[in-house]
Every structure is written in structure tokens, then in C-alpha cells.
């Protein structure tokens, strides 16, 4: 009997060793792991240094904010905040923090951490800094008690609430202990995390990506279906991402793949593709401040010389939605029913005839590496040649174009690009793109119309959303009538996933990269 027990124990240990060698989990539960192939490299994990959609996964999964954007159209939802109050003058925002939220080291999330986080953003002057630089004075945010935060704004602002999700709350005690030469813990946080989010960091390599495990004590709690581990890897090549998905190496990738690749993935039996209208408009800036582009007739001629249908239906295979105004179709403040311009060379010629003086060769800017901008520039050039206007295409990297965009003299006559979602408020689009106080910064058209500007300025401080919507609708229509730019489409997001992946929730702000809702079947 004794020998039998010894033999049984020996066999059990051999079996366990063998199971572990072939990768069978020995704890009785198969751990679910989701691997995402991302086109942007995770150069840093510091949530206050970066503010782009390409690297949003590290912020959304490892950090929480007072509020969070969820779903599509995006809904602003209290997150670490339990409730909030806005003063009658629109200058004081008071947030009550929910109790029970903890950082990954187990310490409670308190008001002092929120204060530290906003002060850190203001001090580093990076990432989401520009959203708060004009509205919050350093040192003005207070924590009257451990669960109350008061933001005292310099001026009334109706867009502040929409920008609050960008304040990712960091563990202030932990970061203070990691500070070197007053860097706010920057060097340490670029490779580590100090958050309270749904997942906690387990591995990070800037050249590869990051891996995180589920934070079981997250304040939102977990249902019975969840992911145990997530891994976001950098895979630069589109073809490699697609092949990796088909091969089963990855379970998901970005939703802005070329249409031929989307079709390829749709045809694969192991994949499915989620489709959502995002909030990322494609348009051409027209330099309104430069002669002869200050003439509305020339701008209207340009707007009629672009073949919208051909671009959307043929070049992009109908994968986007026509968006004729500088506000996305799927957000309030969009003037519904506005048709915008059509490809009509006769109208273009008629407007051109009204332009006084000679028309110089037009420089059409495009972004190197972003094929659509080059295709749109070529299509416009074709239309312009038919109405007798000479043009040249200049394609340059974003690092070059972004510099020229801020300089009135260096700016191209026209430039094709996208306007992404930084916060889901019409101010993110028409409110910044055509406001006089943003000229040379976020208004790169040098468009400044007193009447439009009045509407936009009113909307920035008006607390009533219905009134704000009316202002934005009117302003968007006026800019379109003025042909302030050539507005083409609103992007559609095609998120490819392995069929095992369930529960994906898309929001234009996070591009479905918040993984707490997802599970594997």
C-alpha cells in the first residue's frame, strides 16, 4: 500500500510536470489572454506625456479618470467620480470621488491624487496639457477632503467636463517616492505604471509592447466573464498584422486598415469585423488668409472641383460616410440635412470666373505615408486641371507639415488631413478649427469670421447643450457656405477580431481598446 501511494505520488508529479511542459494550466482554470497588434509603438507608458489615439490602450487599461467616455455616440459617464456639481457661474467644478477605489499597490484613490495628477499635467506641459492650460491655473485645484476635488477655472467653460477623462489619475505617494531632480517621477513612469485601472502592468518593453493582468480589486468589479491577461504588441506592417490575425497570433488589431485587408479578414472563417461610424473627419484646409484664397468664389470653385463620389465610392470602396460639414455626422451640433458641395465643374468654372485677378499655381499639401491624402490631392489636381487651374502636390512627413501648419507664410495653400476625436464635443472640430483665438494653433486655415466666432465663443461658455448645439449647427453651416475648407467624409472603424473575442465596446475616443468589457469564448 505504501509502495502504491509512493507510485501514485510519483505518477502525479510526472503528470503535472508534463502538463506544465506542454502548457496545460495546472490550476484547474484556463487563463484567457487577449493579444492586440498595434501599429503605434508604446514608447512610453506615462499617461500624462502622450495623448494620441494610437497609444490609448496603456491609458485606458491601466488608469482611471474621474469621468470616462463610453460607447458610440460617446456618453460621458462618471468613473472614479460618484457625482459632480457645476457652479452657476460655470467656473467651479466639484467632483465627489467614489469610495473603495484603490491603486494597484492597494492604497486608496483620494482627492490628493487627482490634484497631483492635474498639477503634473500642467507642470510637464505635454500630452493633454493644451486642454487645460488656458482654463486651470497651477495650484488652483483643491482637495477640501479626501473624497472631494474642486477645479477652479479661470473662466467659465462648457467644454471642461468633456476634457476631464483626459486627467488620468496617478498614485501621488508612489510617484513622489520615484521623483528624481523634480521630474515628477517621469523617468520611472515611462517604464512603469501607477494607476488604479482594470489591468496592472506585468511586463513592458518599449520595443515590443506591454502585458498586463486583471486587477481583481478594481472598483467597477468584474462579472463572470473577463480577460485574465492582455498584451498589446507593436506590429508596424499592415500585412504582418493581418497575417498574424489570420494565423491566430493576435486576437485583434486597429480598425483603420485599408479596405482590401478588411475584405481579406472578413473572408476568413476565424475572424469577424465590427463596423462603427467614428468621429474622424477628412478634409482639406484652405489657407483663407492668403490671397487669392480669401475670395469666397475661389474657395467655392475648389470645393466644386473635388470628385467626392469618386473618392468615397471608388477609391475608398464606400468604406466611409460623406460628411459635408466640419462637425462629424454622429455628434450633436451637426447641422442635419446639410448637403455641402458636389462635384460640378460647370459651377466651379462659374465661381472661378468671378475671381478677380490671376490665380497662381496652387500648392496642395499631402502627408507622406498616408496614401489617402495623396490620392485626394491627385483627385483634386485632376479636377482643377479641368477648370484650367494649375496646381502642384507637395507630400511631406507629418513632422514637416505640422511645423508649416503653424506658420502663416509656410503653410500650404491647401492641405489634406484628418481631424481626430480628442474629446467628444463639437468644439473639438468646428469650435477649434475655425475660432479666431485658435488661428495659427488649432485653426490652420487662418479663417476668422466675426459672426462665426461670436457663435463659437458663446457656445464655449453656454451651459445649456441645446443652445450650444444650435450655435454649432449654425457655425458649421456658415463655414461650409463660406467654403472654409473642403469637407469630405467621416471615418468608419472596421475592428477585426478573432471569433473567440466577445464583448468589444467601441467608443471613438478609445477605439474599442478598453479591454475590461471583453472576454474570450
Amino acid at each position, binding site marked *: 500500500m505504501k509502495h502504491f501511494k509512493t507510485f501514485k505520488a510519483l505518477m502525479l508529479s510526472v503528470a503535472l510536470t508534463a502538463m506544465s511542459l506542454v502548457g496545460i494550466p495546472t490550476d484547474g482554470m484556463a487563463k484567457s489572454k487577449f493579444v492586440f497588434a498595434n501599429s503605434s*509603438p508604446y514608447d512610453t507608458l506615462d499617461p500624462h506625456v502622450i495623448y494620441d489615439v494610437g497609444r490609448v490602450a496603456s491609458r485606458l487599461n491601466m488608469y482611471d479618470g474621474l469621468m470616462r467616455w463610453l460607447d458610440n455616440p460617446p456618453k460621458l459617464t462618471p468613473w472614479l467620480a460618484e457625482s459632480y456639481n457645476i457652479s452657476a457661474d460655470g467656473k467651479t467644478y466639484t467632483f465627489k470621488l467614489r469610495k473603495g477605489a484603490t491603486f494597484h499597490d492597494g492604497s486608496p484613490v483620494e482627492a490628493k491624487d487627482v490634484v497631483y495628477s492635474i498639477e503634473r499635467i500642467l507642470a510637464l506641459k*505635454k500630452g493633454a*496639457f493644451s486642454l487645460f492650460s488656458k482654463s486651470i491655473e497651477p495650484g488652483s485645484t483643491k482637495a477640501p477632503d479626501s473624497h472631494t476635488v474642486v477645479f477652479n477655472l479661470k473662466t467659465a467653460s462648457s467644454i471642461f467636463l468633456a476634457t476631464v477623462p483626459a486627467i488620468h489619475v496617478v498614485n501621488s505617494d508612489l510617484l513622489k517616492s520615484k521623483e528624481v531632480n523634480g521630474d515628477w517621477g517621469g523617468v520611472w513612469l515611462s517604464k512603469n505604471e501607477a494607476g488604479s485601472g482594470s489591468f496592472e502592468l506585468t511586463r513592458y518593453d518599449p*520595443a515590443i509592447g506591454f502585458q498586463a493582468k486583471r486587477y481583481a480589486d478594481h472598483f467597477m468589479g468584474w462579472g463572470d466573464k473577463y480577460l485574465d491577461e492582455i498584451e498589446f504588441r507593436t506590429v508596424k506592417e499592415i500585412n504582418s498584422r493581418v497575417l498574424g490575425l489570420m494565423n491566430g497570433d493576435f486576437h485583434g488589431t486597429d480598425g483603420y486598415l485599408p479596405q482590401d485587408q478588411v475584405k481579406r479578414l472578413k473572408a476568413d472563417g476565424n475572424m469577424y469585423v465590427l463596423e462603427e461610424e467614428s468621429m474622424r473627419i477628412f478634409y482639406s484646409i484652405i489657407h483663407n488668409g492668403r490671397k487669392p484664397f480669401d475670395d469666397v468664389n475661389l474657395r467655392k470653385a475648389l470645393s466644386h472641383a473635388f470628385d467626392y463620389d469618386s473618392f468615397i465610392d471608388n477609391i475608398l470602396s464606400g468604406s466611409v460616410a460623406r460628411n459635408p460639414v466640419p462637425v462629424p455626422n454622429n455628434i450633436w451640433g451637426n447641422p442635419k440635412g446639410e448637403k455641402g458641395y458636389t462635384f460640378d465643374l460647370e459651377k466651379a468654372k462659374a465661381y472661378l470666373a468671378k475671381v478677380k485677378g490671376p490665380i497662381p499655381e496652387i500648392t496642395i499639401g499631402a502627408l507622406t505615408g498616408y496614401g489617402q491624402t495623396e490620392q485626394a490631392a491627385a483627385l483634386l489636381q485632376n479636377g482643377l486641371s479641368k477648370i484650367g487651374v494649375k496646381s502642384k502636390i507637395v507630400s511631406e*512627413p507629418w513632422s514637416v507639415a505640422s511645423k508649416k501648419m503653424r506658420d502663416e507664410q509656410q503653410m500650404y495653400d491647401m492641405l489634406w488631413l484628418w481631424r*481626430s476625436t480628442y474629446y467628444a464635443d463639437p468644439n473639438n472640430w468646428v469650435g477649434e478649427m475655425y475660432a479666431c483665438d485658435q488661428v495659427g494653433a488649432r485653426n490652420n486655415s487662418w479663417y476668422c469670421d466675426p459672426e462665426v466666432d461670436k457663435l463659437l465663443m458663446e457656445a464655449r461658455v453656454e451651459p445649456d447643450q441645446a443652445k450650444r448645439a444650435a450655435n454649432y449647427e449654425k457655425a458649421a453651416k456658415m463655414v461650409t457656405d463660406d467654403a472654409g475648407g473642403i469637407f469630405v467624409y467621416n471615418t468608419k472603424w472596421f475592428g477585426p477580431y478573432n471569433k473567440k473575442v466577445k464583448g468589444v465596446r467601441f467608443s471613438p475616443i478609445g477605439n474599442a481598446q478598453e479591454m475590461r468589457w471583453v472576454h474570450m469564448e
Partner: protein
Amino acid sequence: MRVLALIINRMLWLVPTLVGLMVITFTISHIIPADPIAFFAGENATPEQIEALRVRYGFDKPLYIQLMNYLIGVTNGDLGISIYTQRPISEDLLSRLPATMELTFMAVFFSTLVGIPLGVFAAIYRNSFLDHFLRILTVSGLAIASFWLAILFQLLFAMELQITPLQGRIDGWGPEKITGFFILDSLLVADWESLQSAFSHLILPTLTLAFPAMATIVRFTRAGVLDAINSNYVLYEQAMGLPSKVIIWKYVLRNALIGTVTQIGLIFGILIAGAVVVEAVFDWPGLGLYAVEAIMNSDYNAIMGFTLVTGAFFIIVNLIVDILHGIIDPRTQD
């Protein structure tokens, strides 16, 4: 003693060569009309925010002062901070260098191992079917674009036959880091699973990178052997009745290799440049991908750091080649 003198001589030249390289790279990277600060600050940044960052990173100073500051930093072992990653450049480079070196060494090793014998056979059996076949193969190796070959290998070996991994450097995150070279680290910690995984992941990128390199080696070896085979000393050895195998592999090859070894030194540099494409396709986390990102972001310090490291590496490899030259042909030491 001669070898030591050669090393000292080359080391003395290393400093001015690298300084020259840095000045050229610095000038070229700074005169292009890009604004890395505006790019890093993002499209939402205000002019004040951009200006504040410009001052913080010293980009507000005249170009010659920026260059002087950089050179002073380099002499103190400080390659600066990446605007984009916010980490020291030396840290970024060191974390990626082993991946590129491992791939490059494997490609050079494979192309040499296969290329030299094939070159010899092509010369021995010149104008035969084998020679013609190798000619087609080598011309293809030089003509076919790396990215196309890489995708072709992926489709065939990883997707269709499923005998190699599609991409990446290893399954998971690799063995315990000692040197950063996965094969070496796997051996040091006796992690056989990682060793197997690292080898299997190396196959396709190595083949892609080695193919054009091998073609060059075959052609040079063939030409060298043909040149040597017609020498008087070969005629003399044949007259002495030495077996042809001994003549070819011991005497002819030694003389024929002089040109090939020079080529191998140059190939190292070409392979590091070629690794940019291969690393992108195979998602290989090396210096090539880092350099591409640095150039696209106009991350000056990163571009300079990459150039400095690859330049120094190239010079050292060529120094080794010169030493090997001396060993193969002692006359060159005179």
C-alpha cells in the same frame, strides 16, 4: 606587433571619423524643415506649449551651440534624451542593439557558410548547369526586394506550410535577460524552450537578410577562385601531384578569400541598413525599427545615436576584416 600597430592606428582614426559622421548627420537632420517639438507636442498643442518645450530641450539655441552641447555630452557618455520616448538614447539603443546584432550575425554567418562553398563550386564547375543555376540564384538575390521576399517567405513557410513562426523574436517575452542575445541567454540559463523558439523565429528574417548577402559572397568567391586557379603556383602544385581537393580548398581558397573577406566587412554595414525593412516586416524589435521611428518623428538625438552606434560598429567590423586580411595574406601587413 604589426596587428597591434594596426589596431592602434585604426582606433586613432575612429575618433575623427565618428566626429565627422556626427557633424554630417547633425547638419543634415537639423536643416530639413521639420519641427520635432511641434510634432511631439501634438496637433492640439498651443504655440506657448511648443515654445516652452523648445526651451526645455535646448532647441531655441543656435545650431552650432546645439552641436557643441551634443559633442560635449557624447564625450561624457551622454547621447541625450529622446524627445519622443523620454528615455536616455543609450538606454533605448542598448535595449534594441542585441536584437539587430543577433539577426545580423546570423545572416552573415549563414550567408558566409553557404556562400563560400557555392562560390567555389561555381568556379570549379564554371559554365556548367550548376554555375548557370547559381548565376540565376545570385542575380535574383541581388535583384529581389527584401520586403517582397520577406512577405513571400511568410506566406509560404508560416501561413501555408506552418513550419516557422510568422513574426516576432520569440514566443512570449524571452529568457532571463543577461546579454539581450536570446540564443546566448537561453544557453546561459539552460532554457531550451526559449532556445528553440529563438532559433525558429530567426529562420525567416535570417533567410531574407542573408539571401542578397550570400549572392554577393558567391559572386566574389567565384571570381577570386577563378583568378587564383589560373596562377602559376596552382600549376606547380598540380605538377607536384597534389590532390585537386587540397589545391582548391587549402591553397586556392586562401588566396581567393582576400576579396571575399573585404566584402563580408562591407556586407555587415549593408545588412544593418537592410535590417530596417526586414525588422518592419517580421516585427523584429531592433535598431532598424527604432531608426525608422526616429526619422519619421525627427527625433534628432535618436537619429544621431543610431548613426553613431552603427558607424562605430561598421568601423570596428572593418578593423576586424583588416586584421583577418593580415592573417590570410601576411604581405598586406608590410
